[in-house]
């Protein structure tokens, strides 16, 4: 990738810092009275999510990161890698467990995920904010109990265990907020 001068720094710009792809959160021009001008920037490491701060001489060049945010459809897991497909080009991308992380709890075939590609390889996989999954295992429901607020554990088709209200039955579809991992409502396909 080409190098980018500090003069072109702006938030959202993707650069390689310490070998990892990072995104500029904010940058500031710093200049001691008579001396060299610097650019102080805060970055988010796109792999670890950690925030780092770095200073550059004004005009210094930094390697740009080939980072792309794309929407890809989840196809299947071959036991090792998770396979995704671009619905327009049918191009396929394989993500390892490190890139998928916790998203694997919610990945259902054909759902569309927001994926960060670095040099064409997925490094971050975000599931849809809401997914609809089938309950594969839970204690028999307590009919009519829609008011007590009590919950019970339930396993969904992806293997994740969530808390559901007592009235929810095995075989039913439920809507889940993947950001919190919480049950939202019953759902119909």
């Amino acid at each position, binding site marked *: 990738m080409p190098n980018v001068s500090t003069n072109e720094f702006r938030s959202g710009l993707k650069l390689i810092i310490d070998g990892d792809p990072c995104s500029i959160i904010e940058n500031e021009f710093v*200049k*001691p009275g*008579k*001396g060299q001008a610097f650019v102080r920037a805060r970055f988010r490491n796109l792999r670890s999510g950690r925030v780092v701060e770095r200073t550059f001489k*004004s005009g210094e060049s930094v390697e740009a990161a080939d980072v792309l945010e794309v929407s890809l459809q989840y196809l299947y897991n071959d036991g090792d890698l998770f396979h995704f497909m671009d619905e327009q080009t049918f191009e396929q991308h394989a993500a390892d467990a490190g890139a998928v992380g916790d998203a694997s709890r919610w990945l259902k075939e054909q759902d569309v995920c927001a994926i960060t590609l670095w040099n064409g390889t997925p490094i971050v996989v975000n599931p849809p904010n809401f997914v609809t999954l089938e309950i594969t295992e839970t204690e028999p429901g307590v009919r009519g109990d829609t008011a007590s607020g009590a919950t019970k554990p339930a396993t969904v088709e992806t293997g994740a265990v969530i808390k559901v209200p007592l009235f929810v039955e095995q075989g039913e579809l439920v809507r889940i907020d993947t950001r919190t991992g919480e049950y939202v409502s019953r759902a119909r396909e």
Partner: protein
Amino acid sequence: MSASFPPRRVVMRMHERASEPASGRAGCDWRPSAGIDALRLRARLLRAARAYFDAQGVMEVETPALGAATVTDPSIESLRANGRTGRSWYLQTSPEFAMKRLLAAGSGSIYQITRAFRDGERGRHHNIEFSILEWYRVGFDHHRLIDDVDALLDRILGSRPSSRLTFREAFLRHLDLDPLTATTVELHDACESRGFASRAASATRDECLDHLLAAAVQPALGPGRVYLLDFPASQAALARIRNGPPEVAERFELYIDGIEVANGYHELRDAGELHGRMRRDIETRRCGGRPAPAVDARLLAAHEAGLPACAGVAVGFDRLVMLAGGYRALREVLAFPEDAA
């Protein structure tokens, strides 16, 4: 911010932008970025500064903003203005050279409040054009000039205590590093442990010191007025160098609440030494493949004719207004900063 003036920064969402008429000026942001209260404060401080110098018998002068020559300092970039005849001028980066020619011509102590221009300087505490309050006191050294700066600040901002700290003491205190004797390895190590890959950036010794000053010393200076003085000889700019050991430049910077506000010198008078420093600046610029302006022949001639013994200082007036009003960014005290000018 002003209570009587609507805030300029209105959060605009994409759909609001899209609904604006394409040809209209409804979305054109014409309002000042400073509140009227901030502008009123600026006007009051300008009046107070002029009253101070008037009472001191220091004469106000005006010198050109467009000059045939400019500063050679490698860390300052000049802007140029082009005329129809093909002639071009530099926009002044400070009124220093013209004021020194007046001093050499026998003006006595003088001050000026003017606009200066520096290319590429843009940030929370920088704007491409800014107001400088610059003055020279004939017969003063930098210590007496610091007293003078303090008296001016007492007069226009109210009386406050101040302290003086040498550059060396400040580094020893806040970094446990002697800036005058530290090895290059020690300086690079200190930079790299503070987020600046100085070796990869092939930073010079002075660039390492600049980073450490900005990243570690400046934030540790604390609230109030601190005068940092006796800079390394390599950072003398146009200050006299006092023979050592250690050899130091009779230069000072004023920090208020950790923000640099003023830079002053016990002025270098020797024309040969001045010429030598300018040639070194030009050499540094050429090595870096950057534009290298010629030396200012008229300034050199004035030095040869004789600059009186004097000390001079430039105060960033916008920053002073910002600090006086408790604002956090220059754009809160500038009517129209660069992106709104």
